[in-house]
């Protein structure tokens, strides 16, 4: 996919070693990004995030469903990611499936916490309408339109923006519903509930190239990586999830170091993202 000559490889590696990357960034600087919300009017919430040459869309759809018997007091959230062939010819046909599955899995780890729902960035109990009977099922779909590295961070940011943009219709439960059958519900058309997304984490991926690690790697830089660690950090500075990818092993002390760097970087990213999201929301309301 990325064809690089020996000279180009040296140039990328040397630049990273000297803290001046090929596009003029430093090791821990993100590319400029922009957020647009409400791009898919048919969905309950949606957002498009452009991070340099990477372009992703996330949409949130809510459907009424039944909570799982083991967790009657919690709603369900599913995350799926699709890689469009427009991003790269290799995603044609079933070619993108492997990467899609990897990304969906990573996002589920980073945003939804464990099986019990503990540590989830989204408050699952706020999705319940009638305990044990009716709850909202959230379907979060990510679509990679254009890929220039660091897809996971971009998708994480897009999902956070889409959730902020999401309005769940207010549901009235008919009074006197009988015990056994499904209670009758009335979905309101004009009253919407917004999510509190301050707890939704951001994902920071540190890519190790040579002896150093960088944030927000481009496709060319990713092709030179030995391993990558994705850390999801919530607004309170808590680590919500951790994934290591790539073949090479890492020294445990390096991992701890990476986590503390990721935590530091995530604060800036979170602030930038929050201001971008509120700007996008304001822009959408105006139009």
């Amino acid at each position, binding site marked *: 996919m990325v064809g690089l000559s020996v000279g180009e490889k040296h140039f990328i590696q040397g630049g990273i070693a000297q803290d001046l990357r090929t596009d003029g960034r430093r090791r821990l600087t993100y590319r400029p990004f922009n957020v647009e919300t409400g791009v898919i009017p048919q969905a309950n919430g949606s957002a498009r995030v452009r991070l340099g040459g990477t372009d992703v869309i996330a949409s949130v759809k809510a459907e009424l469903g039944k909570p799982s018997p083991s967790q009657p007091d919690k709603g369900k959230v599913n995350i799926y990611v699709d890689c469009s*062939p427009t991003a790269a*010819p290799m995603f044609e046909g079933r070619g993108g499936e492997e990467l899609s599955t990897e990304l969906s899995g990573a996002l589920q780890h980073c945003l939804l916490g464990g099986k019990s729902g503990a540590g989830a960035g989204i408050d699952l109990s706020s999705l319940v309408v009638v305990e044990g009977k009716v709850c909202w099922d959230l379907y979060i779909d990510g679509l990679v339109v254009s890929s220039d590295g660091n897809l996971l961070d971009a998708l994480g940011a897009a999902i956070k923006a889409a959730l902020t943009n999401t309005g769940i219709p207010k549901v009235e439960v008919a009074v006197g519903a009988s015990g056994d059958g499904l209670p009758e519900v009335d979905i309101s058309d004009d009253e919407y509930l917004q999510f509190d997304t301050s707890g939704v984490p951001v994902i920071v991926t540190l890519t190790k190239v040579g002896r150093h690690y960088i944030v927000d790697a481009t496709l060319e830089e990713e092709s030179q990586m030995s391993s990558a660690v994705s850390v999801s950090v919530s607004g309170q500075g808590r680590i919500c999830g951790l994934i290591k990818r790539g073949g090479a092993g890492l020294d445990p002390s390096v991992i701890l170091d990476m986590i503390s760097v990721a935590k530091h970087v995530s604060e800036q990213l979170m602030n930038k993202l929050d201001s971008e999201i509120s700007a996008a929301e304001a822009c959408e309301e105006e139009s």
Partner: protein
Amino acid sequence: MEFVSPEGLRLDGRRPMEMRQIRGEIGAVAKADGSAFFEMGNTKVIAAVYGPREVENRSQQISDQALVRCEYTMANFSTGDRVRKPKGDRRSTEISLVIRQTMEACILTHLMPRSQIDIFVQVLQADGGTRSACINAATLALADAGIPMRDLVTSCSAGYLNSTPLLDLNYVEDSAGGPDVTVGILPKLDKVTLLQMDAKLPMDIFENVMQLAIEGCKAIANYIRELLLENTKQLEYRRGP
């Protein structure tokens, strides 16, 4: 159901011969050789072109012309109800084929023997007329990639409901069960390259409906030509003196 009110207005407030708002944008995908975004009302598609490049699968190579390939995909969130369809269902395969044949007719394939051109179209939101929107987006993307073409291809649909010919059907009108004529033309050469219709229609009315669709195609062609001119001017400006 009433699709045209007594005042002569359609469900979304348009007149029978009125098109939806169209909008195009060149360069939607940074890594592609050519790309475009095209919007017809609520139908939104992205097209990306890769090539001309070396043929990936040697056995498909054609010695005297370029191989044109096309893939049409719909995003999970593109339709009103969320459905997770497996890739390569029959509908997408059929539309891929239609787009490929239409685009192949206008690309000067004999100039690029033994090479391959890939056209990928991604539907972000579907509200009727995805076929037409995809063809219009693909034309823009091909022009952006600088691929030699005979002419632009533009496409538009028209239908016939409540004894009125209607231009550019939306999803509700499309699923009403009336005839749906999709036409693709080469506007300068004045040739039809794509014609599809379902349901039946008397000959004389068909002529009217098709003429209406052709008028729609021509309007889109004017818009696309303006867009490309504007884009070229910008490129020239950026290049400097």
